[in-house]
């Protein structure tokens, strides 16, 4: 006869683990990494390596100093390092990568208690800190495929399509929509290739690491607002969706577990908020790009979104009634 085991619940455990999920995210980021090497040369591999190594090192040292158990085994530092690197231009000086990585891991993540406790996405925190500190180095875009043509001697600077994009304008100076989709444009090293990012996103959804709600609502909101702003200019809308960091932001950064709401309703509010802020910044602000700022602002609002979308336990009365009862009782 089989022995009965008496134990406290939960009795059924999900096979998902943090390292497993993080490994899936890393796998999903690989196509974008390959695309960045093809587009911007082997330096993008170097930038990514520097970010990943300094993220792991700073996580290890920070945990050691704070006398907490070490968490580098959960692979989350690698994901942070890769995402941060994907948000940097390929020409960025390597010491800046180290500064940004240390900031992302130590200040944004470890000061708030490590994995699951970070108040905003660490990679975005690091990127914004670098953008504010090193404005010129962070907006020095390299033209794609130049390393290939020139034998990697001279990197040619270019503008991102976002900078010269206006509704109903002349799109002839911009890369074609096919180039935009394949990532043959100036930009951060991991954000340009829409094809690779969408492939990664599909992998994550198929592996059930993320739900498609946030990316779809985020991108959808931007698309709708841009369609209205461009007075129905479909091409303008497509350029807006494919340029900047919208896809990498929506698929990989806004879906971070610790900094996005738990419920579907909350996720929709969060993603629509991201989309609205991104569009407002792109259309009206001095900055050309607003994806990272929109995600960081909505990250900070997540606790409030959670409190207004808290699910009601089955059979529980509505909160309003309870409040009224309490008031009557008191």
């Amino acid at each position, binding site marked *: 006869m089989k022995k009965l085991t008496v134990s406290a619940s939960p009795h059924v455990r999900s096979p998902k683990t943090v390292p497993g999920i993080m490994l899936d995210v890393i796998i999903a980021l690989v196509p974008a990494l390959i695309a960045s090497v093809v587009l911007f040369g082997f330096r993008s591999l170097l930038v990514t390596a520097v970010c990943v190594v300094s993220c792991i090192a700073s996580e290890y040292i920070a945990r050691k100093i704070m006398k907490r158990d070490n968490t580098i085994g959960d692979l989350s530092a690698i994901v942070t390092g890769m995402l941060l690197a994907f948000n940097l231009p390929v020409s960025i*000086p390597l*010491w800046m990568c180290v500064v940004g990585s240390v900031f992302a891991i130590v200040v944004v993540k470890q000061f708030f208690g490590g994995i699951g406790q970070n108040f905003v996405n660490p990679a975005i925190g690091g990127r914004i800190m670098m953008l504010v500190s*090193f404005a010129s180095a962070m907006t020095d875009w390299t033209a794609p495929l130049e390393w290939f043509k020139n034998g990697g001697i001279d990197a040619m600077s270019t503008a991102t399509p976002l900078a010269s994009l206006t509704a109903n304008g002349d799109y002839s100076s911009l890369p074609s929509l096919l180039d935009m989709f394949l990532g043959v444009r100036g930009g951060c090293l991991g954000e340009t290739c829409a094809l690779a990012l969408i492939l990664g996103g599909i992998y994550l959804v198929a592996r059930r690491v993320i739900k498609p709600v946030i990316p779809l609502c985020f991108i959808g909101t931007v698309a709708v607002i841009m369609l209205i702003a461009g007075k129905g200019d479909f091409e303008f809308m497509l350029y807006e969706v494919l340029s900047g960091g919208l896809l990498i932001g929506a698929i990989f950064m806004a879906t971070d577990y610790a900094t996005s709401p738990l419920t579907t309703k909350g996720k929709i509010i969060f993603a629509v908020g991201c989309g609205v802020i991104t569009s407002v910044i792109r259309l009206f602000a001095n900055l050309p790009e607003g994806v990272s700022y929109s995600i960081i602002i909505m990250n900070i609002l997540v606790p409030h979104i959670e409190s207004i979308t808290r699910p009601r336990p089955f059979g529980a009365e509505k909160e309003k009634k309870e409040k009224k009862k309490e008031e009557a009782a008191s």
Partner: protein
Amino acid sequence: MAEKKSLGKEFTKGLIKENPVLRLVLGTCPTLAVTTSVTNAIGMGVAATIVLVCSNIVISLLRKVIPSKVRIPAYIVVIAAFVTIVQMLVKAFVPALDTALGAFLPLIVVNCIILGRAEAFASKNTVLYSAVDGLGMGVGFTAALCMMGTVREILGAGTFLAGIQDLLVLFGDNVFGGWNGLDFNNALSTIGLQPITIFILPAGGFFVFGILMATANRIAEGRGKPKAELGCTSCPMAGHCNKNKDEKCEGTDKEATA
């Protein structure tokens, strides 16, 4: 007060244990605004210390004369008088500091540290203790400003004590052979580095502020030790606090709650 007071204790408590900026979190606005350079931090700290000591002395002298219902306006008048004097002196003798601090020099009037010490300490203690308390708090304020200024100036601007001659002009022209602070920018750019601009922006100020506060808490409380009580004397709301009514508060000013 339960424990016996000593002058030394009243002075040193302002440095770490009850440091006005790092432990009581008072005077945050000037702290974040002027600490972009050490020179400004020293100027601001010294100016505030002078006002703090003088106003503590006068308010302590007048503590039995001022009716509790109008004490805040009375304190403000006393503080404003000293701030005006200090501002005129700064304008006359260190004009560069006046330009650098701008509105934050006259704003010492509403600096929470000064009003807080008047309300929490000087109005209940004798003149000598109040003066020492003011000095300790002032030195603590200046030290905190200088620490923040050092980190922010070195990391954010790549300089240290830049423009110090603006302050040293008090002691004559070209003191220390006209030494005007250190500038690491050339050295940095030769090895391909540059200052991290965010540290002289408000956001970076908050980061440095938070890290210094955590450090001060660590030093004041340590690990494993019981949490240090700040006590009601350090609380600017002591006069209006409910604890007062239950007489749980040490150093209760009964007139204030009446």
